[in-house]
């Protein structure tokens, strides 16, 4: 609602001839208070812009400190011979973006006139920036601003003149996106940013050439693949339809776990161990367990399933007791898997039914096992736990990775906590409420310190945990409490009738919760969860305080300590502010669009 009133009250900023004068009079000088506001806010705005430009173009600021250290900021000490992994990950992501755009035919469209007015005001803004920028601005950049500003002004007014209001047309979203891609490629290949970088510890800077080909060639390939896969997605969309879309959604839910893992994985990875132990074990549990579940879930085998489940549970619990006393060695993940299969078998009567349902049940188990073993293998390998003295993880890669995995792991925890908090069982409710309120009452930094300092103290002797893993655990514990509160909001919006209807259908408590209550509650809490994802992304900057090399730490202490750029803090900090802003702003804009869409769905 607010959005529509705002746009209704905001006509295009500049109109031609008489109407422009009228617009100015109505919007800027209609009354005494309005005139006063115009003067005060313009003064503040111009002063602030001048000050910010002074910070950016000040004589002390050496922006080549950022340009030279771009690789450090993005992926820290990532081994150069392993860099192909980062590119493969980026390729997969962009390729899937293209595929999704094609398959869904996302086409909100842009008004051509709106495009023209935006171009016009951007041009005017650039000229204003040129006027306000300080003496120290490099001649080349000042000239570029003037040229670009005038070009945009001319382009904008041409568009506005060519498309009068009554014959306004709309541009397709993909067309706009593809022209932006083309523009980026043109800028990469043509604009002489200069080539900055580090080779074997030696810094170099070459002015007047385009960016290094090790950057622009991969980006060109990635972007071209993205455009190509739009076509593929469009071709697949109508013919295969729902299945392809479902697969793409599945990819976006669990895919990032694999992609980020592809990047985060320690280069010194013990592949012999993976092939001889990890993969066979995962296959045994996934296939054997899936088969067992499929066989047992045939209707009428409830009693058998309970007996087998009880035996398995007893065996699994005995494994933990054995682990406690150190009777016989067994990989921890095997113990986990036995416990999980025992619970799954005990759940069989709930999911028993026709063939398709049984297949889905067994398939869900298969997916769970594959995902779990993949993640445990990644975390639990010796070489990944102990991070060598100069950590190779850092920069934007670390920020995004931590944020994503924290959300992924704290989600099930949050669901459980919120269910416990809304349950009718007082002890569960009190325990969950205590946990949530205590965690929400203290600042994140104390939780992080607690985990990085105290966790080693609490562990039995001989057990250790890496710094990054401890910090990750702290983030997860913290995030789960907030997640629980967001989901509780959704749970409370479920009407009593839904519960009664589920009971009337004869569903069990587990079935009622997983099939009726949670799907509706989660749908309601999606906007809040996206908000939390943005908050988590921003909060990852606290890693800098507890010792990780994230964007902030690199900009604030690594770069200013390099002998070439001593004390150069401001350029780096301004640059990472921009990086954070672009990502968080994009997320929040798309969440607003999603919210509007969900509301429209509810209204129908």
């Amino acid at each position, binding site marked *: *609602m*607010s959005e529509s*009133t705002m746009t209704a*009250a*905001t006509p295009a*900023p500049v109109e031609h001839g008489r109407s422009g004068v009228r617009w100015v009079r109505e*919007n*800027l000088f209609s009354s005494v208070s*309005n005139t006063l*506001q*115009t003067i005060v*806010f*313009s003064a*503040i*705005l111009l002063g602030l812009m001048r000050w910010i430009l002074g*910070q950016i173009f000040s004589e002390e600021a050496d922006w080549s400190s950022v340009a030279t250290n771009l690789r450090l900021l993005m992926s820290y000490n990532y081994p150069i011979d392993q860099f192909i992994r980062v590119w493969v990950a980026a390729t997969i992501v962009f390729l899937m973006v293209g595929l999704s755009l094609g398959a869904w035919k996302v086409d909100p469209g842009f008004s051509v006139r709106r495009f023209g007015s935006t171009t016009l005001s951007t041009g005017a803004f650039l000229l204003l920036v040129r006027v306000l920028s300080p003496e120290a601005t490099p001649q080349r950049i000042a000239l570029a601003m003037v040229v670009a500003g005038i070009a945009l002004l001319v382009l904008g007014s041409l568009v506005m003149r060519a498309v009068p209001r009554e014959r306004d047309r709309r541009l397709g979203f993909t067309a706009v996106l593809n022209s932006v891609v083309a523009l980026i490629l043109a800028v990469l290949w043509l604009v002489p940013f200069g080539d900055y970088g580090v080779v074997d510890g030696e810094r170099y800077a070459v002015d007047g050439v385009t960016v290094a080909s090790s950057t622009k060639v991969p980006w060109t390939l990635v972007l071209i693949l993205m455009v190509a896969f739009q076509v593929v997605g469009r071709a697949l969309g109508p013919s295969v339809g729902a299945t392809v879309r479902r697969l793409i959604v599945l990819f976006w839910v669990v895919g990032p776990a694999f992609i980020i893992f592809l990047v985060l994985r320690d280069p010194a990875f013990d592949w012999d161990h993976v092939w001889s132990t990890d993969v066979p074990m995962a296959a045994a549990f996934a296939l054997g367990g899936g088969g067992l579940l499929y066989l047992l879930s045939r209707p009428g085998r409830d009693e058998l399933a309970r007996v087998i489940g009880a035996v398995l549970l007893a065996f699994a619990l005995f494994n933990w007791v054995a682990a406690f006393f150190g009777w016989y060695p067994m990989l921890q993940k095997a113990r986990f898997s036995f416990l999980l299969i025992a619970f799954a078998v*005990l759940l069989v*009567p*709930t999911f028993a039914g026709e063939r398709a349902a049984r297949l889905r049940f067994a398939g869900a188990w298969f997916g769970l096992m594959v995902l779990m073993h993949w993640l445990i293998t990644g975390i639990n390998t010796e070489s990944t736990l102990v991070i060598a003295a100069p950590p190779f993880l850092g920069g934007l890669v670390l920020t995004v990775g931590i944020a994503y995995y924290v959300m992924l792991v704290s989600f099930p925890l949050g669901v459980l906590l919120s269910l416990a908090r809304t349950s009718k*069982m*007082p*002890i*569960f409710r009190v*325990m969950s409420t205590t946990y949530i309120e*205590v965690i929400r*009452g*203290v*600042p994140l*930094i*104390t939780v992080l*310190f*607690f985990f990085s*300092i*105290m966790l080693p*103290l*609490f*562990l*039995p002797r001989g057990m250790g945990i890496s710094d990054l893993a401890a910090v990750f655990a702290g983030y997860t514990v913290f995030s789960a409490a907030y997640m629980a509160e967001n989901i509780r909001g959704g749970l409370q919006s479920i009407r009593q009738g839904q519960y009664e209807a589920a009971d009337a259908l004869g569903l*069990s*408590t*587990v079935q009622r919760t997983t099939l009726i209550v949670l799907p509706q509650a989660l749908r309601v809490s999606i906007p809040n969860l996206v908000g939390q994802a943005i908050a988590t992304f*921003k*909060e990852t*900057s*606290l890693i*800098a*305080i507890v010792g990780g090399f994230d964007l*902030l730490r690199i900009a*604030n202490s690594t770069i200013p300590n390099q002998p070439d750029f001593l004390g150069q*803090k*401001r350029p780096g*900090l*301004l640059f*990472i*502010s921009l990086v*954070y*802003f672009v990502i*968080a*702003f994009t997320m*929040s804009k798309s969440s607003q669009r999603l919210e509007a869409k969900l509301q429209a769905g509810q209204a129908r």
Partner: protein
Amino acid sequence: MTDNQSTASVIQVGGRPPLWRNAAVLKWAIQFAALVAVLGVFWFLIVEARTNLAAKGIPVGYDWLDDPANFQLAEGIQTVDSPERRLTMSRALWVGMVNTLRMAGLGILFATIIGVIVGVSRLSKNYVARRFSSVYVETLRNVPVLVQIILWLAILGSLGKLTADSGPIPGWLIISQKGISLPRIFLADGFYQFASMMLLLSVGIRYVNRSLRRRQEREGGEHRVGSKTFALVVVAVVVSWFANPVMAFLGPVFSALSDGWGAIPQGVMQTLLSLIAVLSAALWIKRFLDSRRTPAGLAKLIDDDWFRMIFSGVAALLGVFVVVRGWPGLSSWMVNSGSDLWGVLADKFGGGRGSLPFDAMKPTLSEGRFVNYGDTGLTLSVFYAALFLGLVFYTSSFIAEIVRGGILAVPSGQSEAAAALGLTRSQALRKVVLPQAFRVIMPPLGNQYLNITKNTSLGIAVGFSEIVQVGQTVYNKNSQTLAVFSIYMIFYLACSLTISSVVNTVNRRLAIVER
């Protein structure tokens, strides 16, 4: 799944199912098992921590609180150790807490002011004001607050050097690399007398205000209740400013109270606390039974109800055990600290106190540095300023969005109806739109206040001596991590509870009274 089985069997058999299929028994058994498991894990962890600490030779407990601090604080009400004022560990932590609260209070004030201005101007008719505010909000809330704080520190670090004649207004307002200094207003000796007198007078003013308002409601018309009350407040301030030595008689009263409280024997205090535990359990059980009472008499109690009552009884008995046997120090601590509290108050009203409640001092420089604390002006170090600016601007962008949402949430029919009743524009805004907007604004605003309080802990990144930073210095000195973290937790939980109870009270006041 147990639930499923048991309900099924209840339907089949009818009557009382066997114990292992009784839903209530199973429910409580699972809960108790979970409780025992969680407590067991905690017990295990604590035992591990104790052994680990003992192996390192670190004593467990809070005895270290009285040790001398052996370090300096960057800023606060006391920064260094001196013979007349010892800086102990507990004193250092106290200084950190005061710094945190100071930062949080000022931050809340300024973030609210800026946030309200920006939020209202996002709805302005003026194009420049609207665009400026929306760019302000979108920019500031999408950059992490820690990045903003550190960016402010870098920017402030590039300001001019501190010299004798630096500042926009030399001698009064100084802004430099070292920080910002301005005249400081402080609580002088007469403050407590002044405050107690104001308290007394405000009771009278409240009475007058209420009767005035009642008369206005009875007779109608404009009685200028607000301006009359304001005039009375001004008179009260003037009277208490000059006449406050009258209140010195409270000193002996408080010292008598202190002696009386200290004379309470420990046994009496223990009995009192046990009685409170037992009586509150009894009261709860009585209320519970009352809620089950129907016009036809007491409803049949199911197993679940019995479990609840037994559980509350057991909890009360546990409380009694803790008071009497488990932790006898609790009651003597209450006796001693209660007596101390009255003693402190008696000291504040002690004889020979001057009458001036407030006083002011100018900033002073010595050897190119600010004189940090003592008989000098208010100095905000560059760390303080960076944290303050970062917190205020970041939080104000969220508050602006809350204010905008609150005003938009009031249906436009409300202001149209007010206009139809003949209210002027400002009357409509004051009496119709804003009260309703406040109802929407208040809860999320309280959340932002909590956030600002918790975010002061980011001072550790710029070296501002707030509680977390001081605590870190303490445990780096003596390895008492467990104790320091418990202090963090208690302090922040107390802050959260205070803020949320204030917000809840305001909210209850604002709530629509429904018939």
